[in-house]
């Protein structure tokens, strides 16, 4: 073996040792948590403050429903002491990763496994099943974090587990959650007030992402552009939507940034509408940096679109 390779190996070993030491140091300082989505990451951050160190497996802007895990995800899970997921059929890929990690407490039902959908009032549970024109998820529509008041239950689930696993900081977590909830209440009533003029006015959405948001803010999502999740609209269904837009005076179409733009733009152009791009998750758009700014941004974009329809 040449001395060059030997040198490289020694250097690599030093780097590894240094890295481990650095990890150990942060592990003492902060409680490591892994979440599946950026929204959960934001909520764990809110209640955990600087006592937790939280990573989201799905990076900002990727689609959690079609996520394919990367090799390092296993490492991220092994280094964490708690995992938080959306649950239902939203992040099923996590189960395989957890099985592979082989940590008993992290598996479904384990002490370090937080299913944030626990105790949420779900919408569209088993409604019509496949082909019913609704979301494909048989277990209920999984986009429940888009009702801001549901974060009350979600943070409840998170803090319950955090307090159990990291009891020295339990008081700290609970205090931060109470602060968050009072701020949430203030903001939600503000958002509701601002969106009140739009209550009941019909609009279209590309995908069935919005039932929880619609319920909280009284938005009337009259129809979805895709007839079934993941299926592009046929000419007949586009024609029907065009007619509805004209007859029912619908001028707004909501799209999430990673959803296809062509059909939506086409409809907007044909029926004199405006496309509004809203974030469904933290990090979908640069303006949605955390859980509050996600709603802040969506609310102001909706208002802007209603203020000057048909660009």
């Amino acid at each position, binding site marked *: 073996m040449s001395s060059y390779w030997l040198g490289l190996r020694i250097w690599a070993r030093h780097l590894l040792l240094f890295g481990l030491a650095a990890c150990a140091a942060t592990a003492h300082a902060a409680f490591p948590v892994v979440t599946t989505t950026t929204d959960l990451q934001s909520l764990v951050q809110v209640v955990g403050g600087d006592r937790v160190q939280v990573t989201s497996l799905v*990076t*900002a*802007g*990727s689609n959690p429903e079609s996520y394919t895990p*990367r090799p390092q995800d296993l490492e991220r899970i092994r280094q964490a002491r708690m995992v938080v997921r959306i649950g239902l059929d939203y992040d099923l890929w996590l189960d395989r990763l957890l099985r592979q990690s082989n940590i008993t407490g992290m598996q479904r039902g384990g002490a370090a496994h937080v299913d944030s959908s626990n105790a949420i*009032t*779900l*919408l*569209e*549970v*088993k*409604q*019509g*099943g496949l082909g*019913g024109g*609704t979301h494909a998820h048989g277990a*209920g529509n999984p986009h429940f974090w888009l009702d801001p008041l549901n974060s009350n239950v979600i943070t409840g689930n998170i803090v319950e587990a955090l307090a159990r696993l990291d009891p020295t900081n339990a008081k700290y977590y609970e205090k931060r959650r109470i602060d968050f909830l009072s701020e949430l209440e203030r903001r939600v009533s503000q958002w509701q007030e601002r969106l009140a003029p739009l*209550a*009941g006015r019909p609009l279209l959405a590309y995908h069935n992402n919005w*039932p929880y948001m*619609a*319920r909280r803010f*009284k*938005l*009337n*999502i009259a129809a979805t552009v895709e007839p079934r999740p993941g*299926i*592009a*609209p*046929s*000419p*007949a*269904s*586009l*024609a029907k939507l*065009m*007619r509805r837009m004209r007859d029912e005076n619908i001028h707004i179409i909501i799209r999430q*940034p*990673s*959803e*296809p*733009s*062509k*059909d939506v*733009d*086409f409809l907007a*152009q044909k029926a004199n509408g405006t496309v509004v791009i809203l974030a469904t998750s933290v990090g979908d758009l640069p303006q949605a940096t955390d859980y509050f700014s996600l709603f802040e941004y969506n609310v102001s974009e909706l208002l802007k679109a209603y203020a000057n329809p048909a660009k």
Partner: protein
Amino acid sequence: MNDAIELLAVPFLACLVLIAIHCQFGLQVLKRNVVFVDLALAQFAALGATVAFMQGHMPNTTAAYAWSLGFAWLAALLLSLIRYAPARVPHEALVGVLYVVAVAAAMLLIEKAPQGAEHLKQILTGSILTTDFSDLAGVVPMYLVIGTILAIAVRRHWFERAGYSGWLADFIFYAAFGLVVTSSVAMAGVLLVFTFLIIPALIGMLFARAEWKQLWVGWLAGVFASVLGLAGSYRLDTSTGATVVCSFGLILGLAFLMRSLGTEKIANSLIPKTIVVASVLVMGISMLWLGIQPKADQPVLDALESQFPSVRHVYLTQQEQLVHTDAQRYIDRYQSEIERLGKLEANARWQAKSLDDEMIQKISSFQQSYNEMVKGERFVMKEVRSRARERLRWPALAMALALLAITSAYFFRSQKRLEDSKRTAE
């Protein structure tokens, strides 16, 4: 009807324009035996757009277009070099390798910038239905120029030249094709562009020998298949791109059939015989399957029943028929109830009087129970049917055996007749 014309007029024009240029290229591509070259070029263009995105250029800007064109031309260069590969290496395989590597490289890059993923996907998944008039106006002049040059090149046999000038002709061919494909894939998507490229050209080759005749036959067949596909997509309420692809496939099948009917000998003997043999075989096998596993899926019988429900009268007793229709009625009722509750909840989201959590949970649990009941009724229907089918077991086996006996007797007789005629000929 007006809606249909309003929606489908521009897509139809787009089909015409795309078929006109792609059929021309398709004939060349088939001749070179590099069928998937359009996929490789389109994928390289997408890779270029990905790189542009990583450099901070938004899609649909000049910089992004320059990057994708640069990559498409890089692919053209590589493709033109394929002619120097050893003869025993299949060229199509090299095209395939270029394609998969470009796909994988783009995936790796997208992982680094997930927010661009959707823009990039749209480069490869155009949709003919939402094609704009301005999209068309942008490409038609370019297609005209390229198409004319290609026609001249074919007429003057530029591609058959050896040596350096042959390579140059090849390179320009692929570079021009890269230009065409980059725009057409963004308009119509990979599947449809492949179809426009290959199927009209194939049909042309099937019916004509001279290249200009092949082109005309291909164009006509393409126009016909597009009309069929677009109209079908509206009537059947299905995705336009996929329907048009299927209609092209259908027309190709018909073309093959017509071609073989055209040769008299085959028409007189082979086709009727094939149809008879195929239907006897299908019947025999499904009878045999019904005899062996009456409770399993019976594709032929099921298809027959779904088209003509009265088939059931043949083998269900009066009582069974009653149970069957009753179960169907209950299913319809439960499903309409599920839908009604769903609508109630969805409307309550925005109406003045909203539902509280408890009410929503109640609705969910009702819907779930109705769904369970639907499953129960479906089970009843299936059970009634499979029990009745079990009674058919022995008759079906007997029929299958009878069919087998008849066909083998027929087969031996015709074999013998063939031998006899051979002997007399000798």
